[in-house]
């Protein structure tokens, strides 16, 4: 499957940059095999190729267990693929770096740090002075709706609250590329909408590249320039869909846009079709 550069995202670049956007992340025929405890090989990702342009917002959709998180780990440099290779800005990814900030599905907060301590970790690490890091972090904590919980430890937070801390922790150190694994999965509809808007605002302001795993077709279409649809295990890329909707997007307007509705319905139908084909195993 050839992946077409997402023309749709060009709108947001300065008018001068008419030349094709440059790729920031290139994934080239990546496969991932896990060895299970039963000493069997389990193919989690099979021959994935994908190019992500600088500043693009790319969502990954796919059935549970298809390898979305694994793909993120590979781009993050946490796991090296069994075969194939991933590049960032033309260089092979050999390990994690502050240019790529992950928000893990399991949050992975530091249990020995408070909410504030967790969020301040990144900026402090980048050498931001304590007072400044604290101010920035408090602002982020307020943004994710956790004002008043600065001194709570992770064990004292609800699932959704932990997720928001994880989000704030990553945003706090301004990585160039955000690798978000269902970052709004544990949030109620209302909070989710608010944070989606906040994320879009940040993205539009800072031109970050975002790789965004989600289960909500709706969310993917609303946020992305490009939606990558994966098929059931072993994970393969089924289709890459450019979302050609105007920016800046506002939820209320978009909901009534027939193009938006068509994207959602089309993608959902594709999912259903994949199911009728039966599970690949």
């Amino acid at each position, binding site marked *: 499957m050839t992946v077409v550069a997402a023309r749709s995202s060009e709108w947001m670049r300065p008018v001068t940059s008419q030349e094709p956007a440059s790729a920031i992340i290139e994934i080239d025929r990546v496969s991932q095999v896990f060895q299970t405890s039963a000493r069997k090989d389990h193919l989690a990702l099979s021959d994935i190729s994908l190019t992500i342009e600088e500043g693009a917002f790319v969502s990954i959709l796919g059935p549970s267990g298809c390898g979305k998180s694994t793909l993120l780990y590979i781009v993050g440099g946490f796991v090296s693929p069994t075969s194939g290779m991933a590049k960032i800005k033309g260089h092979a990814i050999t390990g994690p*770096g502050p240019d790529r900030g992950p928000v893990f599905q399991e949050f992975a907060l530091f249990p*020995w740090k408070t909410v504030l301590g967790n969020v301040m970790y990144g900026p402090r690490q980048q050498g931001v002075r304590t007072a400044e890091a604290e101010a920035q972090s408090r602002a982020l904590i307020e943004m994710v709706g956790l004002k008043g919980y600065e001194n709570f430890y992770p064990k004292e937070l609800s699932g959704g609250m932990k997720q928001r801390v994880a989000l704030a922790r990553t945003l706090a150190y301004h990585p160039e590329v955000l690798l978000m694994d269902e970052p709004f999965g544990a949030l109620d509809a209302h909070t989710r909408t608010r944070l989606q808007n906040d994320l879009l605002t940040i993205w539009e302001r800072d031109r970050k590249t975002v790789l965004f795993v989600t289960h909500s077709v709706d969310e993917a279409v609303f946020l992305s320039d490009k939606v990558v649809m994966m098929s059931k295990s072993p994970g393969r890329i089924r289709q890459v869909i450019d979302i050609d909707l105007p920016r800046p997007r506002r939820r209320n307007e978009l909901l009534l846009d027939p193009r938006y509705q068509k994207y959602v319905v089309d993608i959902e139908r594709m999912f259903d079709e994949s199911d009728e084909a039966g599970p690949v195993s």
Partner: protein
Amino acid sequence: MMSRFFSPNVFLGIAPIVLVIAVWQGLVSFGFAPAVLLPPPGFVFGRLLQQLVTFAFQQEIAATLIRLFAGFAIAVVLGVSIGIAAAANPAINAVVRPIVRVLAPLPKVALYPALLLLLGFGHGSKITLVAADALFPILLSTYYGASTVEQKLIWSAMAAGTPRYEILFKVVLPAAMPSILTGCRIGLVISCIVVFLAEMITSTDGLGHALVTAARTFQAVDMFVPLITISLLGLILNGLLGALRLYLLRGFPEA
């Protein structure tokens, strides 16, 4: 604070100790043990209070404590750093693992005569013996604690730009802290035992020395005073370690 101190749990903890003392008294009273071997607890505690205010006895305690703390501190520093390094780096692991396997089960007292000649009869040899014996429990606990740190915590820190060696201090160390502290608790108890043992074997001062001299001349009461002292020291030091644990692990679910 005060109300916490006098919580029912404290009474629950005192109860068995009171029971032990009662059994002790009973053994003496009903003649299961002659007073020359097992003096009644009242005598011992009376003598202890008497001794505690004397300068000579305070010096014995001080000598023991210096050796205990120094040896234990060395064991903690070495045990934690080697344990973490071995968990983090396969090359170090490959070297440390067999060495630990060989050295850990050695009866270190057997090396004590060699230590005496090497380091003299003063603090040095005893501190070394304490450190050598307390090291391995701490090292093993640290190693297991550090090698089972949740990977995504490390990933998160790496992605935030933490250099690899700093991750050892900023993530691996705090994440392994519950296990490290368990090792320290065991190391502390072993330190108490070993410092005493070393002083019993060869020494001119310290609680262990006070015990042997009393034991040789059958001064049973004076023999039990150092024993009670070391066991109270153990209790106090463990209490302190417990408080430290509560503080350090306040964010962890089990605290």
